[in-house]
């Protein structure tokens, strides 16, 4: 800066404001963050704060009346357990399926084609998958008819309008997401690491336990959180494929009913807040456990 070289003495020793800001990580490029920040404030923080405030303004009763009502009515608070009972197993099964498949696909020659096929369900949307499953899993669907033809079962198995319909749809729509994340973590591990472990005497099981697993856990935890949050907010398939009045009355249905059947937006907000809090508790617990593991570069030294 020419103006600065002209300055003399103590004034020149002190860097100007622009330099000091740059040293703290602020320069003109930082301004590019502003549109995104505005977007977050307008579409996330403001509605969230609005909902939070709204939830403390019940139609009747004191500040916490909505929350008190939720936790005193089993018809309401049971939805947490119901949703958990769908979301947790579906997420865990997806992870259990994705991990070995990712390990295989890693070496697969047509990795891209297989990945595309596995990922197609993500592009379909939950409603289309639910419609498809209704036909496929229904009493007159292909699955039941095939099983009856083969003599495996005598009468159709009930797989829709109950727990299993929703569960299967969660697995199908959630899998591609978990799989893609897992695949990227698995392929991120330097293949020389398991090879080195092998030359040191580690068999396949030991290599998985001592090399792959510790390096994968942090990534898998993130994948779990994202998939779980998605599964926990299940709505269309719980209505279309499940028994929304009973076994698959998930928490989002309760919120929907409060908002659009009872027109109690304050209560609906309170349920949404509870839903968010439950998700947050699970995510914080999982990510907290993640800090117990190594979270550095997955490579080995200077590649």
């Amino acid at each position, binding site marked *: 800066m020419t103006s600065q070289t002209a300055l003399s003495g103590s004034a020149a020793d002190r860097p100007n404001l622009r330099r000091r800001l740059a040293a703290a990580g602020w320069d003109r490029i930082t301004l590019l963050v502003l549109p995104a920040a505005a977007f977050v404030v307008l579409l996330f923080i403001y509605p969230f704060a609005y909902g939070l405030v709204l939830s403390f303004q019940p139609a009747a009763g004191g500040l916490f009346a909505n929350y008190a009502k939720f936790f005193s009515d089993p018809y309401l608070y049971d939805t947490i357990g119901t949703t958990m009972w769908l979301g947790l197993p579906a997420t865990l099964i997806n992870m259990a399926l994705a991990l070995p498949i990712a390990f295989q696909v890693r070496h697969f020659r047509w990795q891209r084609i297989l990945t595309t096929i596995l990922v197609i369900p993500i592009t379909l949307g939950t409603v289309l998958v639910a419609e498809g499953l209704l036909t496929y899993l229904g009493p007159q669907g292909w699955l039941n008819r095939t099983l009856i033809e083969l003599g495996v079962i005598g009468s159709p198995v009930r797989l829709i309008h109950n727990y299993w319909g929703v569960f299967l749809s969660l697995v199908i729509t959630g899998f591609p997401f978990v799989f893609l994340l897992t695949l990227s973590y698995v392929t991120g591990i*330097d293949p*020389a*690491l398991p*090879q*080195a*472990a*092998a*030359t*040191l*005497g*580690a*068999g396949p099981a*030991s290599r998985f336990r*001592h*090399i792959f697993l*510790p*390096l994968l856990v942090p990534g898998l935890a993130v994948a779990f959180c994202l998939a779980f949050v998605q599964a926990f907010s299940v709505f269309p398939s719980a209505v279309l494929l499940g028994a929304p009045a009973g076994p698959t009355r998930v928490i989002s249905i309760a919120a929907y009913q409060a908002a659009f059947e009872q027109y109690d937006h304050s209560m609906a907000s309170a349920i949404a807040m509870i839903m968010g809090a439950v998700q947050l508790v699970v995510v914080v617990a999982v990510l907290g456990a993640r800090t117990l*593991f*190594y979270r*550095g*570069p*997955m*490579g*080995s*030294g*200077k*590649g």
Partner: protein
Amino acid sequence: MAKADHTFGEIRLDRVSRGFDGVMALQDLTLTIRRGEFIALLGPSGCGKSTALNCLAGLLPLTGGSIWLDDRRIDELPPERRGFGMVFQNYALFPHMTVRRNIGFGLAMRGVPRHEADPRIDDAVRMVQLEAHVGKLPGQLSGGQQQRVAIARAIVVQPPLVLMDEPLSNLDARLRLDMRHEIRRIHNELGRSTVYVTHDQDEALSLADRIVVLRDGRVRQIGTPEELYARPAVLDVARFMGYRNVFEGRVEDGGAERAIVVRDGIRLAGTPRGALGSGRASVAIRPEELIPGEDGPGAIPGVVESVEFVGREYAATALTADGLLLHFRSHQRLSLDEPVHLRASPERVLLFAAEEGA
């Protein structure tokens, strides 16, 4: 788990071959590694030297041939049951384990009890001088330190054979020289065999007891550094051993001990390596062996094209009348375009039968 055999004698590779989709990356490598021997696999990139190492380690299945540890055939065993130590080019340290756990990994996998493993890990740490760093993660170490961890990890299990895949290629020049000495010292201290892959002939010459020169997946020559340096068997090996001046000429007098090759005003006496025949021959001369001298029979006339001071002497090039560029050495500074008459003693002028199609 097969325990490493501490009393083994030798490792034999019998026509070991490996192809990838029909292309032979390594063909018929036959070699006996004696106990305590340091073998260097030398060649340009893509010559099959890393393939050979991976075949030995068990990381690549063979497509032909067999590997024997004394009387036991081992080429069908997976790497974890061969018990060879391996130092990878990128070190392949486990990023989530401390230096100490990295080094102790092989012992842990072999189920060596703690009270027995600890002193052995301490010994290995001392041998590579990493006492101050045992609690660190690999990411906190410099390249040279990571390299030492990789070596310690490979040797702590006392394998009959240590395999090293260009272990110095990621280090700077100074450190490379230091680590070269370290590697030879550790090898001597352990008294076990080492197979060392490199593309650097200086490294191979200074480290190895025997060098295997590979090219296009085939062995070109196996010999001691002295043999390869003074008497390369084929032109490829000569090129690799620093014979920078290679040109063709017509064989005029093809004796077995001494032959005369002529080329446009040059008439050179040299030592044939193998049968020359009566056609054309390739002449190979090391720059160090070519010095300016008197004009007369046997001298190559030219004019100085470039001069570089390289410390003890000058490295210079000269251009002959027919456009041949020759590298030579001189004790005096020469001026550009000065005429010179280059001479080499006939023992140091190697003659090879011209390669077909070359």
